[in-house]
């Protein structure tokens, strides 16, 4: 306990000393740092901040020191998060490498792979994207067809991925490929390769909400060194599933913060519908708003309870499986309700006649429809609860 408090004092002092004042302000989306070979730093202080944090191993505090981390235990990492939150420090690096690839590489990667990739992830030098979904393999991901053929001294990859977030900015991809066509789940491998390889092409996708971070990604005779396969030939599905757990947690979290500048439902409802005393004038909408904010509160309490259960070792398991489903459905419901409260004001697409926030409401409402599709549809999530938590038969 005393050691932990010593660490807290040390962390606090270091953050006070090293976090530039500009990095203690709310993070606008355009200033978010994703790193990589083509990294841009709209705010020069964010480069300095990343370098300092990375040098200390704190972009990935729980990773071992030899892979760019600081070797902190879970309690110390929690203290660090608390101290960063206390100072309102920005997250120095946004990274699929940290959130998704890193944890599985630590577990399944060879020593050479870990030494090659993890430090670069930790320092934000290489930006990663995720090659999972294909046009014919969405919820049924294991039906993926992108071929990976053994050419003796290298692999040859041909096929197409879709919904590859930021593929057009990424340096490397972690990719699911088919290495055996005679079987389904047991014919998938997990492979890493450079997006600068010959034969890789990306095309951004326009969504119902407008421009997006998603891409279609095409592979035509891409040559990949054989050492880039992670965890053994045809062993990819285990890694893929584990990585999805990290992704779903990330999306549920993002689901709660998406549309960051759109205020909560009750605030928007009051803005458009309140009488002088603040009461929402439309009884049906007032009831719907109350119901929504109450569900939000109960959901927030459930996330908190899950954290407390896990800290105290009293978790019965399964609780977190509802977070992706419930968080994304709540977020969709939030925007539907905001649209109702704002009426015509939320129906603007662009330009004059609407506030920036009203345009954002409309765009985010449309974008929120994808929350319950990406990273495991709501229907798949309900199947997961039914099977793993409730034990219902297949």
């Amino acid at each position, binding site marked *: 306990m005393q050691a932990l408090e010593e660490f807290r004092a040390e962390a606090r002092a270091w953050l006070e000393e090293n976090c530039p004042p500009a990095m203690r302000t709310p993070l606008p989306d355009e200033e978010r740092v994703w790193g990589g070979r083509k990294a841009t730093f709209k705010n020069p202080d964010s480069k300095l901040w990343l370098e300092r944090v990375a040098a200390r191993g704190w972009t990935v505090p729980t990773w071992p020191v030899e892979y760019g981390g600081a070797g902190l235990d879970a309690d110390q990492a929690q203290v660090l998060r608390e101290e960063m939150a206390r100072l309102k420090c920005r997250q120095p690096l946004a990274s699929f490498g940290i959130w998704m690839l890193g944890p599985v590489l630590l577990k399944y990667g060879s020593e050479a792979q870990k030494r090659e990739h993890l430090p670069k992830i930790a320092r934000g030098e290489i930006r990663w994207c995720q090659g999972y979904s294909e046009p014919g393999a969405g919820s049924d991901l294991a039906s993926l067809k992108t071929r990976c053929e053994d050419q003796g001294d290298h692999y040859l990859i041909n096929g197409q991925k879709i919904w590859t977030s930021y593929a057009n900015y990424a340096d490397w991809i972690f990719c699911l490929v088919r290495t055996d066509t005679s079987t389904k789940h047991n014919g998938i491998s997990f492979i890493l390769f450079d997006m600068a390889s010959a034969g890789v092409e990306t095309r951004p996708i326009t969504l119902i909400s407008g421009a997006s971070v998603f891409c279609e990604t095409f592979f035509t005779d891409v040559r990949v060194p054989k050492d880039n396969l992670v965890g053994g030939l045809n062993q990819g599905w285990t890694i893929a599933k584990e990585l999805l757990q990290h992704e779903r947690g990330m999306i549920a979290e993002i689901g709660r913060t998406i549309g960051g500048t759109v205020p909560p439902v009750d605030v928007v409802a009051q803005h458009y519908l309140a009488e002088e005393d603040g009461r929402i004038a439309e009884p049906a909408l007032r009831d719907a*708003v*109350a119901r929504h904010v*109450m569900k939000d509160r*109960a959901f927030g309490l459930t996330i908190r309870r899950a954290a*407390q259960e896990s800290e105290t070792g009293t978790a019965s398991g399964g609780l977190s499986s509802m977070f992706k489903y419930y968080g994304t459905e709540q977020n969709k419901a939030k925007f539907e309700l905001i649209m109702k409260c704002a009426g015509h004001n939320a129906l603007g697409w662009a330009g004059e006649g609407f506030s920036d926030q009203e345009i954002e409401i409309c765009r985010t409402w449309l974008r929120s429809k994808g929350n319950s599709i990406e990273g495991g549809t709501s*229907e798949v999530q309900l199947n997961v609860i*039914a099977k793993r938590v409730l*034990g*219902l038969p297949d």
Partner: protein
Amino acid sequence: MNLVLNEEETILKRGAHEYFGERLPVAALRRLRDEHDADGFERAAWAEMADMGWAGVLLPEAYGGAGFGYRGLGQILEEAGRTLAASPLVATVLSAAPLVLAAGSEAQREAILPAVAAGECLLALAIDEGARHAPDRIATTVTAVDGGLRIDGTKRFVLDGHVADHFVVVARSHGAVDATDGITLLLVPAASAGVRVTRTAMVDSRNAARVEFAGVNVGADAVLGTIGEGYPALERALDGARAGLAAEMLGSGLEAFERTVAYLKLREQFGQKIGAFQALKHRAALMYCEIELTRSAVLAALDALDADSAEAPALASLAKAQACEMLELVSNEAVQMHGGIGMTDAEEIGFFLKRARVAQQTFGDAAYHRDRYARLAGF
């Protein structure tokens, strides 16, 4: 805010689970119903519960209580909810005794609370007058007369009304019918002249009564607290009752849900377990989510009440509203998923549906608490 049970609470809950499961299973409620039991609960069982300290679980040790707080009582109620156990826990322990403790004089507390903790005195809160819970709409009057006070009015849905030894009566000393100012709490012996109690047979086979107060004369010392200023204490006690009843409803919902999931794994149609059908799987998963949200809201409300937090009113409304929605969903789905057998009186699942609707109306339904939550939040 602590949302996990401590060791003491876990032991209490486990003990309650075993007790209700063995001593007061759903079959016990069926027996009370079918035999038209005069009390509507088992006095012998109540004596056992009092021996275990449950009658005084909320009360301080000075009055013979156990001082476990709302968190502790909530664990007992959740387990009572699993078997739909009929007992004075809700009327006496959860609803009325806290008002005597909060608003009563030392003499009133001494006269009532040790007997409550010993399981020897039953109380009933006489509050609602209309079809729906409305603690701020009180037409029952209390007026000054020579040598004391006179109470006139009719109360409905008085839980345990026909077995109570004393009523805690919510009456009005002055003000309009919907004013909180003027609300007065009185401790009235059930044997007082002018008190007429009519037991009502409710769909859930649990106790409720219509209680008329026709020129009931009581001394000035019957007032709990100050005349006309009873509302704040009433609200706080009601919040406790809402959170506690939500805990009971959580237990009922969990039990109905677990029985339903077990049935989905047992029943076969079209050559397979019906639990393999996705149409049923998804609905089961949705119920699971609502039950988990209810558990979080209930724990938060119980915890806030014990901590005397400013958030307690909003969290009590959250817990009750969420419990109401959850239990309506689960009780309906439970009958549907049991199919034809679920419609029979021989199968116990119907008891959960019947209890659900009464519990939903008691101390305010989901719509009531959404409105209250919005008011507390300023919209």
